[in-house]
Every structure is written in C-alpha cells, then in structure tokens.
C-alpha cells in the first residue's frame, strides 16, 4: 500500500473523512461529577464540522483552501496534518507535517535556542543539521540579542517571527499555512513573502489557507472550496475562487 503511494507521489490521501465535535453543555469532566450523574448524562451538542470528504494531495503541490468562516477549513487542516483523528474513513500522510497559524509548536518556558532545536528535531532534522541552520534562523527572525531568552518574555511579534523562521528554514515535508502572511510588521512580511516566493515553496507540499485571493492565485496550482463542512469543489484555482466569491455575495 505504502509503496504504491510513494510511487504515485501522493503526499496526503484522505478518504471519506468526517468530523463531528461533541460539545457538552454541562461538562462532567471529573470522576466525582461522573459518579453523581451516572444516570443523568450531560446534554451534548453535536457540531458536524466535516462531512464525508475525500481528497488527494500530490507531493510538491501547493493547494489553496477557500471558504467562509466556520466552513471547516481549520478542522480539515488539523485532520490532514494528523493532529485530530477522523471519525470515519482514513488519512494517509507521507512524511512529517507542520501546522502554522498564529502560533507554532513552541513552549513559552523554553528559550529561543531550545525552541529552535526542539522544533527542528520534531520536524525531522538531526542536531547537526539544526546546528548548521541555527544562525540563519535567528538572523532571519531578527532575534540575535535574544537567543537565550525564554520566549515568554518575547512580544507576540517576536514569537511569530521565530515560528515563521523555523518553518522557512527547517520546514516539514508537508506544511499547512493558516493565514500566515499576517505575521510581523510590514518589513518582515515583505521579507517573508520574498523567501516564500523565491525558493522555499518549490519541492514542498503546501496547503495554504487564506482569505486573500491574491495569495491563493499567486501560489496555488489547485484550490478547494468548502461550504458548511463539505468539499464543494476541488480543482482549478480560478474556478474555486469564483465559487468562493459567489458564496460571499
């Protein structure tokens, strides 16, 4: 099974995946509460976030994900990244994944240096490889004077820059970028976009979530349009953008 996937160059294969969130209105999350309410189960609301969705993403593709707020984009991204389990069907992921949105996997109790090493290692790099790119990451993030400072003392912009830098320099096999072009000040954004355009995107599998049509149009060779937890369209970028624009009218 795995061999055929590698041969075909599929990075992610999702078949009939769905996700329903159970939200209990009166949370019985202690043993005592559960014991006293054995015959009085908490009222549970079921929120279907994704409905029976299938998609294949090839290696090296940049896929755009479009849809209005609450249509299930972020849930889909988390399922495809292997962060959430799916209720039905399966997701096959070939390689390491990294999800970037406002935060990336960093601990506020650790210093910038430690976070770079931990994140790099989680993304599959060896210590020597991280040693080699360490200075680049720090200088790209413009954090030279704060290498051994715990990031809980950083401003939110500094944390976001560090996360973006790690992603740019270390990167996982499959990257999920959820509205990341809002990181840092104008100058950093310009720099980030430049790197993103120049080389970084090549050879990486990227799933891009953005409300900016310009960004989607520029980078994505295919795009998916979602509405109310369903995949309405997956294919040509322009067509997906048209559908999204119509949905917004």
């Amino acid at each position, binding site marked *: 099974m795995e061999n055929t996937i590698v041969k075909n160059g599929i990075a992610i294969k999702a078949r009939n995946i769905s996700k329903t*969130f159970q939200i209990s209105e009166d949370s019985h*999350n*202690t*043993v*005592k509460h*559960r014991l006293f309410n054995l015959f009085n189960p908490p009222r549970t609301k079921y929120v279907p976030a994704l409905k029976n969705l299938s998609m294949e993403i090839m290696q090296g593709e940049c896929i755009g994900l479009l849809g209005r707020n609450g249509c299930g984009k972020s849930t889909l991204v*988390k399922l495809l*990244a*292997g*962060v*959430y*389990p799916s209720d039905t069907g399966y997701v096959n*992921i070939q390689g*390491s*994944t*990294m*999800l*970037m949105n406002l*935060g*990336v*996997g*960093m*601990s506020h*109790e*650790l210093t910038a240096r*430690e976070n770079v*090493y*931990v994140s790099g*290692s*989680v*993304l*599959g*790099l*060896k*210590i020597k490889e991280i040693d080699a790119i360490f200075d680049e990451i720090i200088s790209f993030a413009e954090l030279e004077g704060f290498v051994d400072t715990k990031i809980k003392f950083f401003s939110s912009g500094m944390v976001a820059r560090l996360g973006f830098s790690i992603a740019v320099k270390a990167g*996982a096999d499959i990257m999920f970028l959820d509205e990341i072009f809002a990181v840092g000040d104008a100058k950093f954004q310009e720099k980030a976009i430049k790197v993103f355009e120049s080389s970084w995107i090549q050879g990486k599998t990227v799933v891009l979530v953005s409300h900016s049509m310009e960004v989607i149009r520029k980078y994505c060779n295919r795009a998916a349009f979602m509405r109310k937890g369903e995949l309405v369209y997956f294919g040509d970028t322009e067509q997906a953008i048209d559908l999204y624009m119509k949905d917004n009218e």
Partner: protein
Amino acid sequence: MISKTLSSWYSGSNKLERLWLLAKIEFKLRYYENKLGLFWALLKPILDICIYYVVFNIIMQQGIPAFASYLFIGLILFNFFIESTSGTIAILNAKKYLYEYSNMNKLEIYISTLMSNVIGFTFNFIMFMVFYNFLEPQSIGLSIQNFWIVPIFANLFIMALGVSLILSNIYIIAKDITQIWQVFSTVLMFISPLFYKLSSFKAALPSFDYANPLAGIIINARRVMMQGLQPDYELMIFDYGYAFLFLFVGLILLNKLGSKAAEKL
C-alpha cells in the same frame, strides 16, 4: 494496532537524538530553574531517609541491618516510580505544543520525560553506591550480582511508562485522576516493603510481594545490591508480567483516548 504504533515510532533516523534532546531540556527545566537546582535532587532522598530512619529505626526499633542503605535503595526506586507517574498525569496538557502543530508520535513525549527521570535516578543511584560502599558500616561491598539492577530497573521503567500512559490518558476524560492517584500513591508507599522488615511485611501482608508490583522490584533490588544474592526469579517474572500488562493497556488507551488529546485538552 500496537505494533503499528511501535513500528511507526521506531522507524526514522533522528528519533533517539530527539528523545535525548527532549529529556535533557526536561531535566534542565525541572532542576535548573530553582535556586537549589540539582542540589535539591540529591538532597531530597537524604532528607527522606533521615526522617524515616528516625521514625522506623530509632523510635520503632525494627533492628534491620544496614537500615539507612535499606531505605536508600528502596526510596530511590519508589521515588522514580512516583515521579514518573504522578509527575506525568498532565503531560499531554503540558507538552501540547509538541503535538498540536505536527504529527509527532506522542509516545516519544512519555519516553523522553521518563528518560529525564532516569538522569535524576542515576545521580541518586551513584549516591547510594558511594554511601553503601564507603559509609555503611554493615556493607558487604561490591558483588557481581549488582549487575542485576539493570534488568530490575528496566522492569521499573516499563512499568512506570505503562502506568504513566494509563493515568495521563484517563486525565483527558477525567481530570481528578490526579487527586485519586495521590491517595493511591500514599497507599502504595505503605503497602510496599520500604520501611519494614521483609519478614514482618510478608507475615502481615501475605502474598503482597506478588500482589503489589513495586514490592518485588524493591525486594529484588535489595537482594542484588545489598545481600549479594541473585534476584528472586519468580518475583521478577511476575513483575515483568505486570509491567507489560500496564504498557499494553497504556498503549491501547493512548490510541483510543490520546489521539483526541489535541481537541479535548
């Protein structure tokens, strides 16, 4: 399912490096953040031993030979177990940053945390060796049987890993497992042969050396480290059985409940 978890964890090249990196950082966070630092890790078992020595040897006069060493080896093993279980109940919450943004295998989080506890245990064990061989008047010195401590400790490690997996995954659905485990660990402390003479322990609590998974480990550790004897093989097999049973249940829970940690915690 379990073999899949294990094989997916083992494949890949930087896993060991990553485990060691996470273990070192965990160790540093635990000890270097405080004023006393690593000194506290060394001081704590000594203080514990002083307290129990006064209570059980001076006040209660049990007359156990080499009682300070007897306590020492038992306590460091027991403390390793407690730190690796009580200390990891909320691990999936504390280490969320590691798995919330990537598909990292959660089992690595547990193993690295336990490895950092092994570093602490190693310091304590060296202290025990120094104490027993140079300061203990009733010491029998080094023995070839001492090497048995390696499989005995491996047994404890697997057991602690299993229990840690069980507790921390139950934590996802029932937070007050923390309080329940606190009480349970106190009970465990008093039904383990930590302070008592082995013969009175066996007389008072018959077959508890088999029923309590920690008892056999402590008994065997004393046999190989202080009495120059081979371990009690039957007890050892029993305790390995417990350890793998806990690990098995823990891995099932990790698959069933742990996969939902990112959304539930």
